[in-house]
């Protein structure tokens, strides 16, 4: 992608910062509206980025979320410093969760995080190293037709 045609923005998310939960997802949503994407794409990006942001807040120490927007696609990458995911395929199963009872009390940790991102993305990849952190890449195409 030639640089001129891409909008980039970097966000920082701190682990445990529940008070700010959803702030980055909201900013991303606002930006996509200003660029004029279709409401369905914006909804998918809002859900995927919210889940990614919440994963950081719930489990990691901190993360950098990178947003790259071109007319063709929205790309969100997340690099966190945290515990990592031991069994990625298992974590991608609906309903699997390692959330604590306190997190569930708050309405989080229904085991829908990663599967929900996958459902809303056109391309989704997860790389993780236990004890170091997790890298997510979410791509939503402007011509994609998902739920």
């Amino acid at each position: 992608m030639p640089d001129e045609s891409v909008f980039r923005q970097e966000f920082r998310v701190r682990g445990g910062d529940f008070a700010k939960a959803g702030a980055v997802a909201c900013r991303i949503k606002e930006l996509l509206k200003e660029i004029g994407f279709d409401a369905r794409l914006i909804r998918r990006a809002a859900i995927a980025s919210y889940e990614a942001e919440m994963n950081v807040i719930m489990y990691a120490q901190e993360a950098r979320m990178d947003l790259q927007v071109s007319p063709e696609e929205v790309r969100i990458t997340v690099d966190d410093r945290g515990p990592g995911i031991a069994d990625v395929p298992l974590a991608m199963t609906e309903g699997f969760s390692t959330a604590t009872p306190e997190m569930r009390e708050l309405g989080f940790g229904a085991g829908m995080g990663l599967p929900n991102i996958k459902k809303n993305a056109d391309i989704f990849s997860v790389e993780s190293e236990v004890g170091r952190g997790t890298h997510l890449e979410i791509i939503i195409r402007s011509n994609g037709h998902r739920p």
Partner: protein
Amino acid sequence: MSEKYFHANHIIREKCVGCVHCLTACPTRAIRVRDGKARIIDELCIDCGECIRACPYDAVESYTTSFADLHVFDYKVAIPSTVIYGQFGSATLPNEILGALRQVGFDEVYDPSAICELNTAAIEEYLSEHLQPRPLISSTCPVVVRLIQRRYPSLCAQILPIEPPREIAAKILRTILPRTLNLPPEKIGIIHITPCSAKMVSINSPATMKRSYLDGAISVRDIYPKILDALRKSQEDALMRHLFPDALLSGIGMGWSLSGGEIRGLKKHRGVAVSGVRDTMRVLDQVEAGLLQDVDLLECTVCPDGCVGGPLEIENRFLAKSRILELVNAAGDRAVVDHKDVSRLYHKDFLSFDHPVTPAEKPPLDPDPARAIRKARRREKIFTRLPHKDCAACGAPDCRTLAEDIVRGVAEASDCPFVKKEKR
């Protein structure tokens, strides 16, 4: 006045001093100060009335129906909001207030609590028949509907498609009164009495039907002195009325004007109530991110504590709320509507929207996505150079909005007093 963007709230230029109170109070950043006067941007305004509350100079007014306008009708009907019951203290019973409205000049006055109960029953039936999507959002607050059209377009399909009580009451009367009175429909005026500055918007440019069944809305503020006068003149009658209470008030409908009043009557479904415009936006953001799917009905009212906190009421909302709660407690769970009748009306589609709510989004930075991206980049660059003090002295509510206005071509960096100073 354009049909597409009718607004009730408007600025009285002679009174506006060009200060920044309304700028920063506006939740959709729809106000700018230009040439020393505040201006509302039509496409962004949702008629929430925050500017009315914020203005220290009473320079924001709201178009409502004036009592004098009613002379065109041969038969005048009032459908007040239940907020009216909270305006006159504990000694004044609802049926005295309804009686006073008759004395003021209405030929017929209808108690709103029964219709609110009817709505609750219809909503419950809709929720039982439609298990997806969740949450559904109540359409009662016209500002919430307009907020969703403008800021949360993807949630338009989640607005529960049943008309609010005021429209249903008017539709029922519009159907039966011409026949019983033997009058042409246009000679019958059906008027809502409300503390809300946005009802005129939903009457003049409805979001879910071609034409509203209401002919106008009189504010509680305007009609209050007339009611008070009528109450004073009929103190003797009031004593009699106390002895023979004739109005059958619905306990389920009575609390609708308080936040949580609408979901209170739900028996089989989970409701959540939110009030206040900023809290409503916070929760709608969460719904757009896929949360609250375990909630059946989301009741949002942009006024604090619900309609009882409307900008055009007289009594302070805490006292009004306390009085209405007394009435709610007195009426308990009393139901006055037969659910079988509601079900019949519901299945005749008598209660539903004529058409769904459609998005009315703010235009993107540019119609061409590639150019919009370039403008977004430029906006970020401009924003980093601004002082981030959000002082609003430039005429925009905050630095981020000024940066956006600059790339949209409606403001200049030199509008910022700090940028100007630097240049010198």
